[in-house]
C-alpha cells in the first residue's frame, strides 16, 4: 500500500486497509508447530540463502520480502513437511516474487542453477503451481519494506493542513 495510489484516502484509511489486507492473508506464528521435523533455525538458514541468491541476481529488496511472505504463508497451509523440500519451496517463492516485482526476472534455468543441482527445473514449475494454489493466488502482501515505505511517506507529509477537521475544529 502507498498513499498516492489511493489519492483521496486519508492516512488512517490507508493504514487500516494495509492492516486489513495483512490480516486477510492470515499470517500466524504457529507454522512451526505444523512441521515438527523442521527447526526454527532452518527457516533462518533458508532466508539467509534466499538473500544471497537475491544479491547474486541483484533483485530488489521487496522481492526477497515478498518471497519470505509467500514462504511463511505457504508453510501454514501444509503439514509435517520434510526439511528436504524447504529449499525447493524457498527458491520457488523467490521465483514467483521475482515475476511480481522485477522488470527482468531471473529465468527458470537460473533459479534451478542456484540450487546447485539439488532441484530440477520441472520440480520448480510443479512447486510453483502448488504454492500459487495454496496461496489462493493472493500475491499482494504487505512486507516489512512496504510498511516502512508507508510510514516514511506519512512521516514526511504535512497532512494537517489538508484536513477539514483542523480548519474547522
Amino acid at each position, binding site marked *: 500500500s*502507498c*498513499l*498516492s*495510489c*489511493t*489519492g*483521496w484516502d*486519508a492516512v488512517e*484509511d490507508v493504514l487500516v*486497509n494495509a492492516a486489513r*489486507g495483512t490480516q486477510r492473508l492470515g499470517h500466524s506464528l504457529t507454522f512451526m508447530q505444523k512441521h515438527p521435523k523442521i527447526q526454527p533455525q532452518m527457516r533462518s538458514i533458508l532466508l539467509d540463502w534466499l538473500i544471497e541468491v537475491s544479491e547474486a541476481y541483484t533483485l530488489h529488496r521487496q522481492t526477497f520480502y515478498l518471497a519470505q511472505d509467500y514462504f511463511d504463508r505457504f508453510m501454514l497451509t501444509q503439514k509435517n513437511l520434510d526439511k528436504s523440500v524447504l529449499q525447493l519451496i524457498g527458491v520457488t517463492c523467490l*521465483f*514467483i516474487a521475482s*515475476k*511480481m516485482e522485477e522488470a527482468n*526476472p531471473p*529465468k*527458470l534455468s537460473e533459479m534451478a542453477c542456484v540450487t546447485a543441482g539439488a532441484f530440477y527445473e520441472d520440480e*520448480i*514449475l510443479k512447486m*510453483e*503451481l502448488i504454492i*500459487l494454489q495454496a496461496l489462493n*493466488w*493472493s*500475491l*499482494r502482501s504487505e512486507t516489512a519494506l512496504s510498511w516502512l*515505505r508507508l510510514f516514511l*511517506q506519512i512521516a514526511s*507529509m504535512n497532512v494537517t493542513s*489538508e*484536513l*477539514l*477537521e483542523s*480548519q*474547522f475544529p
Partner: protein
Amino acid sequence: MEQYSILGRIGEGAHGIVFKAKHVETGETVALKKVALRKLEDGIPNQALREIKALQEIEDNQCDLKPANLLISSSGHLKIADFGLARLFSEQGERLYSHQVATRWYRAPELLYGARKYDEGVDLWAVGCIFGELLNSSPLFPGENDIEQLCCVLRVLGTPTQDTWPEIVELPDYNKITFKENPAIPLEEIVPDTPPQAISLLYKFLVYSSKQRCSARRALLHPYFFSSPLPAHHSELPIPHLGGHPPRQRLQPPSLDLSVDLPLQNNVVDPTLLQGHATCL
C-alpha cells in the same frame, strides 16, 4: 474450469481469448480469460500473475477514476489505467502535487465529508465528473483544496439537505462545516450547448446520495446512447496522429433517434463487426 459454462466469446487480445461464461454454482456471469501459454519455459507468466493482482486490487476498490487514468489506444479502445505508481514516483523524491490535485476534482462528496465506508458510488460520481468534463472541455469542480472542492460541488448541486442527501447526517465531518445556503444551478448552465439527453444522463450521476447514482449497467440503457450522435465504432474514432497529419474526420453521424422501446439488439452494432475489437467489454 468445470465450475464454468462458456456462453460465448467476447474478444481476443495479444495475450489470450476472453470468454463470457457462467459460474455454474452461483449463476454469476463472468469473463474468463484464457491465456495462451505458448512457451511455459518460465512457468506461470508474470503477465498473468500481475493481472490477477490488478483484478484483486479493483475488487478492493483501489482504482482511481480520473481523465489522467483513461487511455485511448491507437485502435480506439478505452483502457482504465492506474498511474498511482507511487513507488516509482516517490523514489524520485518529490510527490507530484498536480497528481494529487487532479484526483480531488473527481472525489465524491461523501468522501469530502470524511466517509470511512464507501461503495462503487464514488466511481459513479467520478464518471459523472469525467462525462461533464468531456462535454465542457474543462473540469466541472476544480477545487484548490478540500474545502473549496466542497464549495464547488455545493455551488452547482445546491446546499445539501436531509431531503436531497439523507445519509449526510451520518458522515463524520457533517456539522464541522456549514456553507451559506444556495439553490442548485441547472446543469444546462454549467454545461452549455449540450444536448438535453446528455444533460439528463449527467443528472443521473451527479447526485449527492451515493445509492441514488445511476449504475453503470443502467446508464448504458439511457437514451443518450441511443440518440444522435450514436456511439461510434472503434474504426470511426478520431485518433491523434504522431506524424503531424491531421486526424481523420469522423463521418457525420446519420441523424437518427432510435427508440429505447425497441429491443437492444436492434440498436447495437452487429457483434460480428466487433470481433477482434471488443477486448475490453
